[in-house]
């Protein structure tokens, strides 16, 4: 993985010093609440319902075991013994003390981490495919490009005060595992007419109050122009994006109001006049960065069947929580953070340290964070999966549910977030209690439930096969249900099935939706496919046909 050189180290240390000084000035009364807010937000620090919340960047989801251990140690000493992994491959601490945040940042800097630009109206953490480098369906490893974008976007002088936040996702595989179509900019590695590698560039996707699927700005961009093209998009957005209304300030609104043709024309015009002098990406630099992501020293192994003759529990885990690896004899292994009685994405200090140890023992000392709020050990020898499973199982990290109903995406909701209208963690718990029969859950197959506690859509509810959105109805928590959303290469936005339902009725509503699916599905048809084939109507009719008995 990428290792800091003297420039990276210098910059994060200088950032810690800068933020320490800003915090000191705020506590001394030299900076007003509002002035400090603009500064702390660009450093991942929110003031939340109970305490500050600190969001730490995990660039494109990649962590060394040393870094994960440090995150665990910080959770124990500065927080209440846990952290929350988010849908954008970051980690959040919910209970740090404001005056201790500079110390936390200093500790993060020691392990080459930071909270730079994890919030605020600037370019956020660049996210990517958690199976980068190991997936059989990959054209090229996106991580060197992610690292290039990370560096270019860090402290970019022109784009630190954008109209609104700006999120970039990069993928290099046939399947889109980074939700790139619902990002402000999606970068897809593709081949040009002569077989050369370049990029398809999308813009204007996003969730929140106005969910929109990104559109293609340029079908093929030669790779040396990646940064100048991104600068042209950002400059058009910085100058022309709306600043009068926070709800209309994302680039998706600009792209929609101009239309994609006019937006493209303006970007290309800006690019024409700047690209000659801008930062061209030379192949030597990409080769240097690619060197950090060379494949680890795989052993020469044959594929085996580790599940043969083992317990049902292991077989289920192996089937659902491990996926194919491009190297024979290896498997990518999910560490499920979706145990039924735990808030989705939460992990204790001890679990972090344990997984760090397991990464050292089984997966070349690296861990990845997925946008579905799980972790991944990417390079595990197939015949070590059984002993790995035994350890994960004891630690509550082997719930065999990846991609299934109970692998829910969920924001922190009303329990922690000052923006939320309604709880999401407790709804996840009610759903888990209702769907505790794993034979039924497995029979349903691939099913993505995504839940957000408010319109800001941190839980990506619009692109859930089933989406759940918390709404406030005269001070009570209600939930609007959508079906038919998807985040992958065939991204679509879910449709609302009807009036919102009470918290206690969410699980029954889902059960009724699934009844229709089980009755109507064709062979190998996922819930999503059935909804796409039949439309919302039969689902809606079933849900509202009879009142839900409390």
């Amino acid at each position, binding site marked *: 993985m990428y290792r800091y050189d003297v*420039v990276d180290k210098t*910059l994060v240390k200088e950032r810690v010093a800068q933020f320490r000084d800003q915090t000191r000035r705020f506590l001394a009364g030299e900076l007003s609440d509002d002035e400090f807010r*603009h500064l702390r937000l660009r450093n991942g620090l929110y003031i939340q319902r109970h305490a500050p919340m600190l969001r730490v960047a995990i660039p494109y989801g990649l962590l060394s075991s040393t870094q994960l251990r440090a995150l665990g140690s910080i959770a124990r000493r500065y927080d209440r013994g846990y952290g929350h992994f988010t849908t954008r491959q970051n980690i959040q601490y919910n209970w740090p003390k404001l005056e201790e945040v500079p110390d936390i940042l200093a500790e993060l800097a020691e392990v080459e981490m930071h909270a730079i630009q994890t919030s605020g109206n600037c370019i956020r953490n660049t996210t990517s495919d958690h199976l980068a480098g190991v997936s059989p369906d990959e054209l090229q490893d996106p991580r060197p490009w992610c690292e290039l974008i990370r560096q270019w976007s860090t402290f970019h*002088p022109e784009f630190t005060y954008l109209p609104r936040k700006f999120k970039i996702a990069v993928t290099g595989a046939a399947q889109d595992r980074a939700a790139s179509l619902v990002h402000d900019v999606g970068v897809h590695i593709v081949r040009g007419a002569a077989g050369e590698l370049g990029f398809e560039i999308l813009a204007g996707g996003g969730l929140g109050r106005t969910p929109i699927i990104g559109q293609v700005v340029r079908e093929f961009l030669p790779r040396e122009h990646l940064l100048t093209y991104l600068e042209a998009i950002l*400059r058009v957005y910085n100058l022309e994006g709306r*600043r009068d209304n926070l709800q209309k300030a994302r680039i998706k609104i600009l792209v929609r109001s101009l239309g994609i043709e006019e937006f493209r024309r303006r970007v290309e015009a800006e690019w024409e006049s700047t690209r000659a002098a801008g930062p*061209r990406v*030379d192949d030597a630099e990409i080769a240097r960065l690619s060197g950090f992501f060379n494949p680890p020293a795989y052993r020469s192994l044959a594929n085996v069947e580790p599940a043969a003759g083992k317990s049902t529990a292991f077989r289920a885990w192996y089937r659902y929580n491990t996926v194919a690896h491009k190297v024979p004899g290896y498997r990518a292994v999910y560490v499920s953070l979706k145990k039924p009685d735990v808030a989705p994405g939460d992990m204790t200090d001890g679990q972090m340290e344990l997984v760090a140890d397991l990464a050292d023992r089984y997966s070349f000392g690296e861990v990845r964070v997925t946008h579905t709020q799980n972790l991944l050990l990417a390079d595990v020898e197939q015949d070590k999966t059984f002993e790995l499973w035994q350890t994960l199982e004891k630690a509550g990290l082997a719930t065999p549910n990846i991609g299934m109903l109970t692998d829910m995406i969920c924001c922190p909701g009303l329990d922690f977030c000052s923006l939320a209208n309604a709880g999401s963690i407790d709804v996840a718990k009610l759903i888990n209690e209702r769907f505790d029969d794993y034979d039924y859950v497995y029979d349903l197959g691939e099913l993505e439930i995504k839940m957000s506690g408010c319109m800001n859509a941190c839980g990506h509810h619009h692109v859930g096969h089933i989406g759940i959105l918390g709404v406030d109805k005269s001070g009570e928590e209600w939930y609007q249900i959508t079906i038919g959303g998807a985040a992958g290469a065939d991204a679509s936005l879910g449709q609302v099935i009807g009036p919102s339902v009470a918290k206690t009725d969410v699980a029954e509503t889902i059960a009724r939706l699934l009844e229709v699916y089980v009755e109507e599905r064709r062979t190998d048809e996922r819930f999503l496919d059935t909804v796409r084939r039949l439309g919302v109507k039969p689902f809606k009719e079933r849900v509202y046909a009879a009142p839900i008995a409390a």
Partner: protein
Amino acid sequence: MPRRLLRDGRIVEDDWSYRAEAEGSARSALILTFAEWQSDRAAWTARGGRLGVILQPADRVESLAPDISRLELIGAQFSGPSEGRGYSQARQLREQRKFSGELRATGYVRRDQLFFLARCGFNSFELSDADIEDAAGALSTFSAAYQPSNDAGLPFKLQHRRRETPAGA
């Protein structure tokens, strides 16, 4: 009391006047709003003396393009803590329009922004008295940068990670 500025890394007294301040000193260095300038370019030019124009955030750099050679100062107005259009205006002026005069940041300008403003090409800053004494230090908040930009206003040479490509490449 005369206005003080941070210019080229030093605190100086402002030798420019805004129109409202300039009554009676007919040939002083005069700063106009973009609207004032546009209303009667010929008369302002005929007046003689040094001229400057302040752009509002929504003003387009390209609409000032024909006049850039006549101006010795161009400013960008920052209307509040979240305003960011001036950063792009500055780079367009320096890099696309090759403006080499004084590029001034005015309005909501705080020392925490100076490093980025300077990298975009600003070389003078109107700051409050509370901020101005310590502000020069903010220009060296970071001693390196990842991306080439326009560092003409900075009192030191930043180290860029990536090689800058010769123009025209």
